[in-house]
């Protein structure tokens, strides 16, 4: 009602719906590496073909290493994961005597994996 010009069309601009709509302002994951960014709130447009090779491509691009790290994040025995780097959490688990698996340390120290937990930047 406040618009003085009768430019309603300009005001309510039609948006094309193409596959998945992306949110317009995503300050959340601008600094994260694009390889492992979460789909929600990211600024990579989802490829329009969600079905590839005959099966729904529901996985974001994370590999089995990331999957193992996510399981480590979600393991309640090692405490909350948000607010710490994965390596710091692993070190804490070791110093508290919880014997976390060695492969996780190897993966994290190799440097290719995401250093923050899966919820970081998403919550």
């Amino acid at each position, binding site marked *: 009602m406040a618009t003085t010009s009768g430019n309603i069309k300009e005001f309510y601009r039609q948006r094309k719906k193409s596959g998945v709509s992306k949110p317009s302002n995503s300050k959340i994951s601008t600094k994260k590496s694009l390889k492992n960014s979460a789909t929600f709130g990211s600024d990579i447009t989802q490829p329009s073909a969600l079905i590839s090779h005959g099966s729904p491509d529901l996985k974001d691009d994370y590999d089995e290493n990331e999957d193992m790290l996510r399981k480590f994040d979600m393991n*309640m025995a090692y*405490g*909350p994961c*948000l*607010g*710490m*780097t994965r390596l*710091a959490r692993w*070190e*804490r688990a070791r*110093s*508290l*005597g919880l014997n976390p698996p060695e492969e996780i340390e190897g993966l994290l120290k190799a440097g290719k994996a995401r250093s923050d937990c899966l919820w970081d930047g998403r919550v």
Partner: protein
Amino acid sequence: MEAMEIDSQNILQRKQATYTSMDDTFEIHKETYRGQQYSQIYYTRLHLMRTLLYSLAPNWKPHLPVCTILELEKDRECIVVGTLYKHMKLKPCILDEYSKERSVTPLVKPHNFMHPDDTLVLEDDSGRVKLSGNVLLPSIYVTGVVVALLGKETDAGDFLVQDVLEAGLPPQIEHPLKSGEDKHVVFVSGLSVGGSTSNPLQFQLLIDHITGHLGDEKEQGIAAEIVHVVLAGNSVEFPRGLLNGQNLASKDQSRLSEPIKELDIFLTQVAASLPLDIMPGSDDPANFSLPQQPLNRCLFPGSSAYNTFRSCTNPHCFEVDNIRFLGTSGQNIDDLEKYSEAKDKLEFMERTLRWRHLAPTTPNTLGCYPFVDRDPFFIDSCPHVYFVGNQDKYKTDLIKGSEGQLVRLICIPKFCDTGVAVVLNLRNLECHTLSFGTEFGS
């Protein structure tokens, strides 16, 4: 006529004692805040204490199963370990500001927030359960204490408590008492130099006594037995009226720094004579949340030139002649007083030792840094002397633990109000007071 002799044959030497600082765990060092929340410190606290309580449980109630809260079954007696949460009706809550029915009573009541309807809840990382029964009294416990409970789940879904196990006093390194010579440590707190209630003459009298400038030889002999001085917080009081958010005029700027300059002049006299520890308190120019970091040495240009001057953290842990001291400037005990009740402050102090945690109400109602990998307030070794500063009255007691631990508890009164300092004898852990008055009888 005989020449006047300076009595050089009677030079009194001050006694010496070894000193070790154990404040490392309270210092922040290179911690950087990465956006973490307090869940991390609660997890670390629960883990540390749960490991401890699990090891104590078989001796307490042999042959009873231990389980987590989610594994509780109806009518099966078992032991659970978790963090207590006290639900308090009167505890100020930020949401009260937005509540539609606002009564005439003020939002924040000043002193104690207890109410007969307070209930306790036990929480661990799997779940939480309401506690019922008469064994666990909500008036004694506060949020943040980790205990082991024996009981069973009732039909109503809550946990009926039959018995409680607290961690108890930690193990203590043996120290033979009644050996050696008399050496004294002086405790003072609440000097509030520069404040309206403090009397500089009283403090000057104390300093003159400690440094041996007062009295005859016998009195100086007593002063020579003082080996250490501890200032337990609130040493300075700034004129807060000046800090009203506006730019300070230059004459106000010098007024603002006068109290700390005055304190520095006093402390230079003390540091020139004997080792001195100064701890920050709630009114001092240090950070707000515990553990408070040492006051910056640039505030004390005169005294920090001496290596006897030590600026320490709050809480402060140190050893003099192998006797372990642990103490705070009072915030932990004052906070317990707001959320629980006891017959006196010494009972609060004893409870914190038996719970093995200096400040269980952090971070719930007392500010603390969100540590991620440790809880520095966990007491792992029992001190021989446990002191708390800035209290109303001087009180002291000797408590005994189940494994022969012996702890001297000291409540140090505010010097600006009472003119009382506390003296502890290291030989037998006995305490007495030094009181200074500047008013002459009418």
